[in-house]
C-alpha cells in the first residue's frame, strides 16, 4: 500500500469523478475543437483548452467557464479523438466537481410544472442523457408520479418539452409560449420585409 500524502489536485479531483479518468491522455492535437458543432456558432468554445486548463490545475477558470455547461454530448469529437478521450464524459466530470464546489449551471435545464403533469413518463423515455427519473411526489395532498430532472445530467436540449403531451415540462426560457412568440415575431418580420 502506498499512502501518498500529496494534496489532491484539481486534476485528481476531475479524474476521480466518473468520466474524468482519461483526462491526462489528451495530447492537445485540437481535433475536438475543429470538430465541435458548438464552435461553429461560438468561437470561444474550446474543449481542448478546458482539458489543458484542468490538467494545469486552473480550477476557478475551468469551473466558472460557460464551456463546461454547453457541451451537448453529441460525441463527434470522441469518435475522432486519436487518444480515446471521451470529452463529453470529461465535461460531465468537471461539471460534477463544479456542482460539489457550489458553482451553478449557467444554462437552461428542463423544469416540470407539477400542476399539469399527468405522470405519463414519456419525458423520461425520450431523454437522451437519462437525466429524468420518475419519482412519487405529492401534489395537492395526493401521491402522484412525477418526473425529476437531474440538473447535472440535463443539457437543456428540450426533447422532453417537445414530447410532453400536456406541455408540463419546458426548458427555462425556452417554453412553448416563448418559442411560439419568437416564431410569430420572425414570421411577421419576414412578411413585413416582403
Amino acid at each position: 500500500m502506498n499512502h501518498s500524502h500529496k494534496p489532491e489536485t484539481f486534476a485528481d479531483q476531475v479524474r476521480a469523478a466518473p468520466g474524468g479518468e482519461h483526462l491526462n491522455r489528451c495530447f492537445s492535437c485540437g481535433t475536438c475543437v475543429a470538430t465541435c458543432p458548438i464552435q461553429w456558432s461560438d468561437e470561444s468554445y474550446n474543449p481542448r483548452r478546458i482539458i489543458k486548463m484542468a490538467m494545469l490545475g486552473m480550477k476557478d477558470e475551468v469551473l466558472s467557464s460557460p464551456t463546461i455547461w454547453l457541451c451537448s454530448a453529441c460525441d463527434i469529437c470522441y469518435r475522432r479523438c486519436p487518444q480515446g478521450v471521451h470529452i463529453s464524459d470529461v465535461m460531465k466530470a468537471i461539471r460534477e466537481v463544479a456542482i460539489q464546489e457550489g458553482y451553478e449551471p449557467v444554462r437552461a435545464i428542463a423544469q416540470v410544472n407539477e400542476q399539469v403533469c399527468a405522470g405519463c413518463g414519456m419525458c423520461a423515455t425520450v431523454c437522451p442523457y437519462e437525466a429524468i427519473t420518475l419519482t412519487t411526489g405529492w401534489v395537492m395532498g395526493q401521491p402522484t408520479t412525477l418526473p425529476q430532472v437531474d440538473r447535472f445530467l440535463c443539457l437543456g436540449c428540450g426533447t422532453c418539452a417537445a414530447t410532453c403531451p400536456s406541455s408540463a415540462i419546458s426548458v427555462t426560457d425556452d417554453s412553448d409560449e416563448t418559442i411560439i412568440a419568437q416564431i410569430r415575431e420572425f414570421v411577421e418580420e419576414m412578411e413585413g420585409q416582403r
Partner: protein
Amino acid sequence: MVDAARHPKVDVRTYTEVERVEGYVGNFKALLREKTRYVRADRCNGCGECAKVCPIEVPNRFEMNLAPRRAAYVAMSQSVPLVYTIDLDACIHCYKCVEACGKLEAIDFSMQDRLVWEDVGAIITATGFSHFDPSVIPEYGYGRYPNVVTAMEMERLNNSAGPTAGNLVRPSDGANPGRVAIINCVGSRDKRFNPWCSNFCCMYAIKNAVLIKQAHPDVDITIYYIDIRTPSKGYEEFYERARDMGIRFMQGRPSLITEDPDTRNLYVLSEDMTLGQVTEREYDMVMLNQAAVPQPDVDTMSSVLNVTQSPGGWFMEYHPKLRPMDSPTDGVFLAGACQGAKDIPASVAQGSAAASRAGRVLHAPEWEIEPVVASVWEDRCISAQGKKCGVCSRACPYSAIEYEVGKAAHVVVAKCHGCGGCVAECPHNAITQLHFTDAQILAQIRALLADKPETKILAFRCHWCSYGGADLAGVSHFEYSSNERGLRVMCSARMDADFIYEALRLGAGAVLYSGCHPQDCHYITGQRVGAARAERLLNAFEKMGMSPGRFRVEWISAAEGDKYARVINEMQAVLDALPREQLMAEIERLRPDMEKRARRMREVPQVKEALAFADRLKAAMTVTKTMAG
C-alpha cells in the same frame, strides 16, 4: 543489390517464401518455396520483349496502382535478378510472349513451385513494414476524394522515374496543384488504430515538402502536425531548412476534409493551436502521411521463425536497449522495420549489427550457452506414461520443450534460456533446473529460516531485477529491516509454490515474492508465468485466513532500490503490528495445510539428502552456539 547478387558467397533468392524453420542456433533447416515465374531464370536475359508484346494491362503495384503494367512484367526496372514473371492471374494464354522470346525459350508454362530444404546456421529477419490504409478514417475521405493521396502515391507522382516523370499532377484532372497540404500522424499516435509513433514520418513529410518545393517553388505547402519530431543528427537543421524555404507548419490535427464537388478542391478543417482558432483552408491536393504498420503476414512469419511479437505485431527484440538486433530465439536476428518503425540510418545500423551477430554464429565451431538450463527426469514425467499434460511446454517462452504424449518431455538445451518456468509449473516435479535445483533451494530456505523463523522476512528475488533492486538498496545505503533474508532465483517464473509452502511450513514470519516488471522480464513472458502463480497463491492464502501482508508480491526493477527498502520496511511493520502469540498461533494453525501442500516436493530426487545435510548443519551450528554460549 547487383553487387550482392554477384558476390560468390551471397545466394539471393527472390520470389521465395520461407515456409518452415526447424532446429536451433547453428543448425537450422529452412523449407523454402521458390515460387514459379513461368520464366526460366537461367535463360531470361531481361530484354523485355515479352512485356512489349503482352496485350494485357493490369494496375502496377510498384507505382501504387497509378500506372499499368503488362501480365509479363518485372516488379521494377532495378529488380535483381532481372528476370521477367508471367502473372498467371491476368494472363490470357495468347502465347505472344513465347513467340517474342524466340530462340531463348525462356518462357515455360509447365513450371511448378519448387520446395527446397536448406541448412542454415543463422537467420536474419528483414521483412520490413507495411502502410496503414487511410480509407478506414472516414473524415479524411481517402478513396472518396481523388485528390487525397497517400504518402507513397505522392512519392511516385513526384518521382522522376515515376508514372508522370516527376511532373506533379493531381489525380482528378491532371492539373499541377498550387496548394498542397500534408497531414501527419494518419493512423499513428491514434488509439483507434495504432498507438505508436511511426518514427520517420515527420522527416518524411518534410522531405517530400522540400522535394516538391525544389521542383516547383511556387507550390504553397502546409504540413499539419501534432508534434514535429526531429531527434537525429542533422534532422532539426533539415526542419529549419524547410521553414526557410517557406514551407508552412501548422500545429493542429485536422478533424475533417471536405471536397468541393465542382473544383475537386479540398477544405482542411483544423484548430491552429498557436492561435487557438479553428481554421478551414483550401487546397488542391492533400497528402496523408500514413502510419507504418507490421507486414500483413507478420503472424505467419512469427510462428514460422518462432519469434515473439511486441504489442502491435512488430517482432520482439531480445532487449530494447542492449540487444535490439537479437530475437529471443538464439540464431535468429532482426534488422530494420520488422522490429519496429525506423528510418534508413537506424535500419542500416541494425542490419549491420545483425549481420555481425550472425557472423559470430557462423564462425563459431561451438556455441556457448548459459549453464542454467532445465532438465527432465524422464521417469517422473507423466507424459512418458501416456498421460496428457504439456504444462511445461506451455509455460516455456522459448518453445524449447518438445512435448508429445507417450514420450517424456524433451528440453532442447540450445533453445533453453533457463528461466525455470517449466520447473516450477510441472505438477509432478519432473523437471529440475541445473544450478537451481529444488534440493538446493529448499536447503537454502531451511538454512535461512533456521533461527527464529517467525521474525524473518524471506525474500525471493529474481536475478535480473529485484535482486538488483536489493543490491542497489544496499550500495545506496537505503536502510531496511535486518530481518530480511534474500534468496535468488533466475526469474519469478522459478518461484515454485512449493517453496512458499515450505517457507511458511517452517514458520517464516513473512514471504516476499518479487521479480521484474512485466515489460522488463529477461525471459519474454517468464514474469507472467510467475505473476499468475503469485495471484493463485494470494487467493489461496486469503482463503486460508492468513494475515494480510505476510505474503506479499511486488515487481521491483534493478533501479528501484528505494522501493525494495520500502517494501521490506512495510513488511516489517506488518510483522511488528502482529502480536507474537497471534502470529505463532497462525503459523501453527496453517502448518498442517502447508505440510500437506509441500509434501510432494520431498519426493523429488536429491531433496531428502539435501535436507538431511541442512539439518545436520543446523544441529552442528546449535552445538557450536551452545559451546560458545
